[in-house]
Protein backbone atom coordinates (compact mmCIF):
# COMPACT_ATOMS: atom_id res chain seq x y z
CA UNK A 1 0.00 0.00 0.00
CA UNK A 2 1.11 3.55 -0.73
CA UNK A 3 1.98 5.79 2.18
CA UNK A 4 -0.03 8.99 2.66
CA UNK A 5 3.02 10.98 1.65
CA UNK A 6 3.31 9.06 -1.62
CA UNK A 7 -0.38 9.59 -2.21
CA UNK A 8 -0.11 13.35 -1.63
CA UNK A 9 2.81 13.61 -4.04
CA UNK A 10 0.58 12.25 -6.83
CA UNK A 11 -2.56 14.12 -5.79
CA UNK A 12 -2.35 16.89 -8.41
CA UNK A 13 -1.87 14.49 -11.31
CA UNK A 14 -4.59 12.25 -9.90
CA UNK A 15 -7.06 15.14 -9.75
CA UNK A 16 -6.10 16.21 -13.26
CA UNK A 17 -6.66 12.63 -14.40
CA UNK A 18 -3.09 12.32 -15.59
CA UNK A 19 -2.30 9.11 -13.72
CA UNK A 20 -2.67 5.82 -15.53
CA UNK A 21 -2.41 2.07 -15.09
CA UNK A 22 -0.94 0.55 -11.98
CA UNK A 23 -0.29 3.88 -10.29
CA UNK A 24 -3.87 4.96 -10.69
CA UNK A 25 -5.11 1.65 -9.26
CA UNK A 26 -2.79 2.07 -6.26
CA UNK A 27 -4.00 5.61 -5.68
CA UNK A 28 -7.64 4.58 -5.88
CA UNK A 29 -7.00 1.74 -3.45
CA UNK A 30 -5.31 4.13 -1.02
CA UNK A 31 -8.34 6.42 -1.22
CA UNK A 32 -10.66 3.57 -0.28
CA UNK A 33 -8.53 2.56 2.66
CA UNK A 34 -7.44 5.93 4.05
CA UNK A 35 -10.17 8.32 5.27
CA UNK A 36 -7.66 11.17 5.76
CA UNK A 37 -6.48 11.11 2.18
CA UNK A 38 -10.04 10.74 0.98
CA UNK A 39 -10.93 14.00 2.74
CA UNK A 40 -7.84 15.79 1.46
CA UNK A 41 -8.54 14.61 -2.08
CA UNK A 42 -12.21 15.59 -1.91
CA UNK A 43 -11.58 19.02 -0.40
CA UNK A 44 -8.74 19.80 -2.81
CA UNK A 45 -11.03 18.93 -5.70
CA UNK A 46 -13.63 21.33 -4.27
CA UNK A 47 -10.98 24.01 -3.81
CA UNK A 48 -10.14 23.88 -7.52
CA UNK A 49 -13.81 23.86 -8.45
CA UNK A 50 -14.68 26.86 -6.35
CA UNK A 51 -11.84 28.94 -7.87
CA UNK A 52 -12.75 27.84 -11.39
CA UNK A 53 -16.14 29.39 -10.80
CA UNK A 54 -14.69 32.88 -10.49
CA UNK A 55 -13.02 33.58 -13.80
CA UNK A 56 -14.39 37.08 -14.26
CA UNK A 57 -11.65 39.62 -14.09
CA UNK A 58 -12.54 43.20 -14.84
CA UNK A 59 -10.12 46.03 -15.32
CA UNK A 60 -10.78 49.51 -13.89
CA UNK A 61 -12.09 51.91 -16.55
CA UNK A 62 -9.32 54.46 -16.04
CA UNK A 63 -6.63 51.78 -16.39
CA UNK A 64 -8.25 50.56 -19.60
CA UNK A 65 -8.49 54.09 -21.03
CA UNK A 66 -4.85 54.87 -20.37
CA UNK A 67 -3.81 51.54 -21.90
CA UNK A 68 -5.84 52.25 -25.04
CA UNK A 69 -4.38 55.75 -25.29
CA UNK A 70 -0.82 54.42 -24.98
CA UNK A 71 -1.39 51.75 -27.63
CA UNK A 72 -3.06 54.22 -30.00
CA UNK A 73 -0.10 56.61 -29.66
CA UNK A 74 2.20 53.73 -30.56
CA UNK A 75 0.06 52.76 -33.54
CA UNK A 76 -0.01 56.33 -34.80
CA UNK A 77 3.77 56.60 -34.51
CA UNK A 78 4.16 53.37 -36.42
CA UNK A 79 1.96 54.53 -39.26
CA UNK A 80 3.91 57.77 -39.56
CA UNK A 81 7.24 55.98 -39.99
Amino acid sequence: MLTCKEFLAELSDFLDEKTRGELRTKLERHLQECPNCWVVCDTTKKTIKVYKGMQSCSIPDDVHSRLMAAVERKMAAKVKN
Partner: protein
Amino acid sequence: MVLQAAGSLCFPAGFVNSFTLWACVAAPFALLWDNGVSRNMATESIPVETPVDDELELVTRAKQGDMTSFSALLRRYEGKIFRLAMNITQNREDAEDVLQESFLKAYEHLDQFLGNSKFYTWIVRIAVNQALMKLRKRRSDRAVSLDEQIDTGEDTVVREIAAWDPDPEQRYSQEELHEILSTAIDELAPIYRTVFTLRDVDGLSTEETAEALDLSVPAVKSRLLRARLQLRDKLTRFFKRKGDDAFAYM
Protein backbone atom coordinates in the same frame (compact mmCIF):
# COMPACT_ATOMS: atom_id res chain seq x y z
CA MET B 1 -21.89 44.25 -6.10
CA VAL B 2 -20.77 41.05 -7.71
CA LEU B 3 -18.54 42.95 -10.06
CA GLN B 4 -16.95 44.78 -7.17
CA ALA B 5 -16.27 41.57 -5.34
CA ALA B 6 -14.75 40.02 -8.45
CA GLY B 7 -12.45 42.99 -8.59
CA SER B 8 -11.08 42.21 -5.18
CA LEU B 9 -9.73 38.91 -6.47
CA CYS B 10 -8.06 40.62 -9.35
CA PHE B 11 -6.56 43.54 -7.50
CA PRO B 12 -5.52 42.27 -4.12
CA ALA B 13 -4.44 44.52 -1.31
CA GLY B 14 -0.72 45.03 -0.86
CA PHE B 15 1.11 42.08 0.60
CA VAL B 16 4.82 42.36 0.22
CA ASN B 17 6.83 39.22 -0.10
CA SER B 18 10.56 38.94 0.06
CA PHE B 19 12.08 37.78 -3.16
CA THR B 20 15.35 35.98 -2.96
CA LEU B 21 18.34 36.38 -5.18
CA TRP B 22 18.04 33.78 -7.82
CA ALA B 23 18.62 34.43 -11.44
CA CYS B 24 19.08 37.42 -13.64
CA VAL B 25 15.98 38.30 -15.60
CA ALA B 26 17.93 39.97 -18.35
CA ALA B 27 18.99 36.73 -20.02
CA PRO B 28 15.60 35.26 -20.94
CA PHE B 29 14.39 38.71 -21.76
CA ALA B 30 17.16 39.26 -24.27
CA LEU B 31 16.36 35.93 -25.87
CA LEU B 32 12.85 37.09 -26.45
CA TRP B 33 13.52 40.46 -27.92
CA ASP B 34 16.97 41.09 -29.32
CA ASN B 35 16.23 40.04 -32.84
CA GLY B 36 16.46 43.37 -34.59
CA VAL B 37 12.92 43.62 -35.69
CA SER B 38 11.48 45.30 -38.70
CA ARG B 39 7.78 45.10 -39.30
CA ASN B 40 5.90 45.33 -42.53
CA MET B 41 2.78 47.37 -42.32
CA ALA B 42 0.05 46.40 -44.69
CA THR B 43 -1.12 49.44 -46.56
CA GLU B 44 -4.49 48.11 -47.62
CA SER B 45 -7.20 48.40 -45.01
CA ILE B 46 -9.08 45.35 -43.83
CA PRO B 47 -12.82 45.55 -43.34
CA VAL B 48 -13.34 45.91 -39.61
CA GLU B 49 -16.96 44.76 -39.53
CA THR B 50 -16.10 41.11 -40.12
CA PRO B 51 -16.50 39.30 -36.81
CA VAL B 52 -13.34 37.42 -36.00
CA ASP B 53 -13.50 34.80 -33.27
CA ASP B 54 -10.47 32.81 -34.09
CA GLU B 55 -7.47 34.01 -32.17
CA LEU B 56 -4.94 33.07 -34.80
CA GLU B 57 -6.91 35.04 -37.37
CA LEU B 58 -6.88 38.06 -35.06
CA VAL B 59 -3.12 37.74 -34.68
CA THR B 60 -2.62 37.36 -38.43
CA ARG B 61 -4.67 40.45 -39.12
CA ALA B 62 -2.95 42.41 -36.38
CA LYS B 63 0.40 41.44 -37.91
CA GLN B 64 -0.80 42.86 -41.21
CA GLY B 65 -1.45 46.14 -39.44
CA ASP B 66 -5.11 45.81 -38.60
CA MET B 67 -5.45 47.83 -35.44
CA THR B 68 -8.96 46.65 -34.68
CA SER B 69 -7.72 43.09 -34.44
CA PHE B 70 -4.98 44.08 -32.05
CA SER B 71 -7.49 46.00 -29.95
CA ALA B 72 -9.67 42.91 -29.83
CA LEU B 73 -6.75 40.86 -28.51
CA LEU B 74 -6.04 43.55 -25.98
CA ARG B 75 -9.61 43.61 -24.72
CA ARG B 76 -9.63 39.86 -24.42
CA TYR B 77 -6.60 39.71 -22.16
CA GLU B 78 -6.07 43.07 -20.48
CA GLY B 79 -7.96 42.04 -17.32
CA LYS B 80 -5.98 38.86 -16.87
CA ILE B 81 -2.67 40.57 -17.56
CA PHE B 82 -3.47 43.33 -15.09
CA ARG B 83 -4.34 40.75 -12.44
CA LEU B 84 -1.11 38.88 -13.17
CA ALA B 85 0.89 42.11 -12.86
CA MET B 86 -0.85 42.88 -9.56
CA ASN B 87 -0.09 39.38 -8.34
CA ILE B 88 3.61 39.84 -8.97
CA THR B 89 4.23 43.52 -8.22
CA GLN B 90 1.68 43.92 -5.42
CA ASN B 91 1.39 47.54 -6.43
CA ARG B 92 -1.28 49.13 -8.57
CA GLU B 93 0.91 51.76 -10.17
CA ASP B 94 3.57 49.23 -11.11
CA ALA B 95 0.92 46.83 -12.35
CA GLU B 96 -0.49 49.47 -14.67
CA ASP B 97 2.99 50.22 -16.02
CA VAL B 98 3.55 46.50 -16.59
CA LEU B 99 0.20 46.23 -18.36
CA GLN B 100 1.02 49.07 -20.75
CA GLU B 101 4.60 47.98 -21.38
CA SER B 102 3.46 44.42 -22.08
CA PHE B 103 0.91 45.37 -24.73
CA LEU B 104 3.24 47.93 -26.29
CA LYS B 105 5.98 45.31 -26.52
CA ALA B 106 3.53 42.78 -27.87
CA TYR B 107 2.43 45.24 -30.54
CA GLU B 108 5.96 46.15 -31.46
CA HIS B 109 7.20 42.56 -31.63
CA LEU B 110 4.09 40.86 -32.91
CA ASP B 111 5.94 39.34 -35.84
CA GLN B 112 8.05 37.36 -33.37
CA PHE B 113 4.95 35.55 -32.23
CA LEU B 114 5.02 32.44 -34.37
CA GLY B 115 1.64 31.06 -33.45
CA ASN B 116 2.92 27.73 -32.15
CA SER B 117 1.66 28.60 -28.69
CA LYS B 118 -1.38 30.50 -27.49
CA PHE B 119 -1.21 34.27 -27.77
CA TYR B 120 -2.13 34.43 -24.09
CA THR B 121 0.90 32.29 -23.14
CA TRP B 122 3.12 34.58 -25.17
CA ILE B 123 1.85 37.78 -23.63
CA VAL B 124 1.94 36.29 -20.12
CA ARG B 125 5.61 35.61 -20.69
CA ILE B 126 6.19 39.20 -21.72
CA ALA B 127 4.23 40.48 -18.73
CA VAL B 128 6.09 38.28 -16.26
CA ASN B 129 9.40 39.58 -17.61
CA GLN B 130 8.19 43.18 -17.39
CA ALA B 131 6.93 42.66 -13.84
CA LEU B 132 10.21 41.10 -12.73
CA MET B 133 12.15 44.00 -14.25
CA LYS B 134 9.92 46.32 -12.26
CA LEU B 135 10.69 44.51 -9.03
CA ARG B 136 14.34 44.49 -9.91
CA LYS B 137 14.36 48.25 -10.40
CA ARG B 138 12.54 48.72 -7.14
CA ARG B 139 15.15 46.65 -5.38
CA SER B 140 18.02 48.37 -7.19
CA ASP B 141 20.93 46.01 -7.79
CA ARG B 142 19.28 42.72 -6.89
CA ALA B 143 18.23 40.17 -9.45
CA VAL B 144 14.75 38.94 -8.80
CA SER B 145 12.99 35.72 -9.58
CA LEU B 146 9.38 34.82 -9.21
CA ASP B 147 10.54 31.59 -7.69
CA GLU B 148 11.49 32.21 -4.12
CA GLN B 149 13.52 29.82 -2.02
CA ILE B 150 10.46 28.11 -0.74
CA ASP B 151 11.42 24.50 -0.31
CA THR B 152 11.13 24.41 3.42
CA GLY B 153 9.15 21.19 3.32
CA GLU B 154 6.38 22.84 5.33
CA ASP B 155 4.49 23.84 2.23
CA THR B 156 3.10 20.41 1.62
CA VAL B 157 2.06 19.84 5.20
CA VAL B 158 -1.64 19.25 5.48
CA ARG B 159 -2.60 20.99 8.67
CA GLU B 160 -6.30 20.47 8.89
CA ILE B 161 -8.34 17.53 7.74
CA ALA B 162 -12.06 17.98 8.03
CA ALA B 163 -14.78 17.03 5.61
CA TRP B 164 -16.55 19.87 3.84
CA ASP B 165 -20.19 20.32 3.04
CA PRO B 166 -21.15 19.01 -0.40
CA ASP B 167 -21.60 22.59 -1.62
CA PRO B 168 -19.75 24.62 0.98
CA GLU B 169 -19.69 27.80 -1.09
CA GLN B 170 -23.46 28.07 -0.86
CA ARG B 171 -23.16 28.90 2.80
CA TYR B 172 -21.87 32.35 1.83
CA SER B 173 -23.12 35.25 -0.23
CA GLN B 174 -21.32 36.01 -3.51
CA GLU B 175 -19.54 38.92 -1.83
CA GLU B 176 -18.45 36.88 1.17
CA LEU B 177 -17.27 34.06 -1.07
CA HIS B 178 -15.19 36.39 -3.23
CA GLU B 179 -13.67 37.89 -0.11
CA ILE B 180 -12.78 34.46 1.29
CA LEU B 181 -11.25 33.23 -1.98
CA SER B 182 -9.29 36.37 -2.74
CA THR B 183 -7.94 36.67 0.79
CA ALA B 184 -6.76 33.06 0.68
CA ILE B 185 -5.02 33.47 -2.67
CA ASP B 186 -3.41 36.76 -1.62
CA GLU B 187 -1.75 34.97 1.27
CA LEU B 188 0.12 32.60 -1.05
CA ALA B 189 3.69 33.31 -2.13
CA PRO B 190 3.69 35.04 -5.56
CA ILE B 191 4.96 32.00 -7.43
CA TYR B 192 2.21 29.78 -6.01
CA ARG B 193 -0.40 32.43 -6.66
CA THR B 194 0.77 32.89 -10.23
CA VAL B 195 1.02 29.19 -11.05
CA PHE B 196 -2.39 28.48 -9.52
CA THR B 197 -4.05 31.38 -11.34
CA LEU B 198 -2.63 30.49 -14.75
CA ARG B 199 -3.24 26.78 -14.38
CA ASP B 200 -6.48 26.45 -12.41
CA VAL B 201 -8.27 29.76 -12.98
CA ASP B 202 -7.18 30.74 -16.49
CA GLY B 203 -7.07 27.12 -17.61
CA LEU B 204 -3.61 26.93 -19.20
CA SER B 205 -2.11 23.45 -19.39
CA THR B 206 0.87 22.53 -17.22
CA GLU B 207 3.11 22.81 -20.30
CA GLU B 208 1.76 26.24 -21.22
CA THR B 209 2.18 27.47 -17.65
CA ALA B 210 5.77 26.23 -17.70
CA GLU B 211 6.40 28.04 -20.96
CA ALA B 212 4.79 31.28 -19.76
CA LEU B 213 6.75 31.33 -16.50
CA ASP B 214 9.99 29.91 -17.89
CA LEU B 215 9.86 27.03 -15.42
CA SER B 216 10.28 23.30 -15.98
CA VAL B 217 7.18 21.11 -16.07
CA PRO B 218 8.13 19.36 -12.78
CA ALA B 219 8.63 22.77 -11.15
CA VAL B 220 5.15 23.86 -12.22
CA LYS B 221 3.69 20.59 -10.95
CA SER B 222 5.25 20.82 -7.52
CA ARG B 223 4.25 24.48 -7.13
CA LEU B 224 0.73 23.75 -8.28
CA LEU B 225 0.37 20.94 -5.74
CA ARG B 226 1.56 23.20 -2.95
CA ALA B 227 -0.68 26.05 -4.02
CA ARG B 228 -3.69 23.76 -4.14
CA LEU B 229 -2.93 22.21 -0.74
CA GLN B 230 -2.30 25.58 0.89
CA LEU B 231 -5.54 26.99 -0.48
CA ARG B 232 -7.37 23.88 0.64
CA ASP B 233 -5.99 24.34 4.12
CA LYS B 234 -7.04 27.99 4.23
CA LEU B 235 -10.53 27.30 2.93
CA THR B 236 -11.15 24.44 5.38
CA ARG B 237 -11.72 27.00 8.11
CA PHE B 238 -14.71 28.34 6.19
CA PHE B 239 -16.04 25.27 4.44
CA LYS B 240 -15.74 22.41 6.91
CA ARG B 241 -18.87 20.59 7.95
CA LYS B 242 -20.42 22.15 11.01
CA GLY B 243 -19.81 20.22 14.20
CA ASP B 244 -16.87 18.26 12.78
CA ASP B 245 -13.56 18.54 14.51
CA ALA B 246 -10.54 18.91 12.32
CA PHE B 247 -7.80 16.39 12.83
CA ALA B 248 -4.33 16.10 11.44
CA TYR B 249 -2.31 13.29 9.91
CA MET B 250 -0.66 11.05 12.45
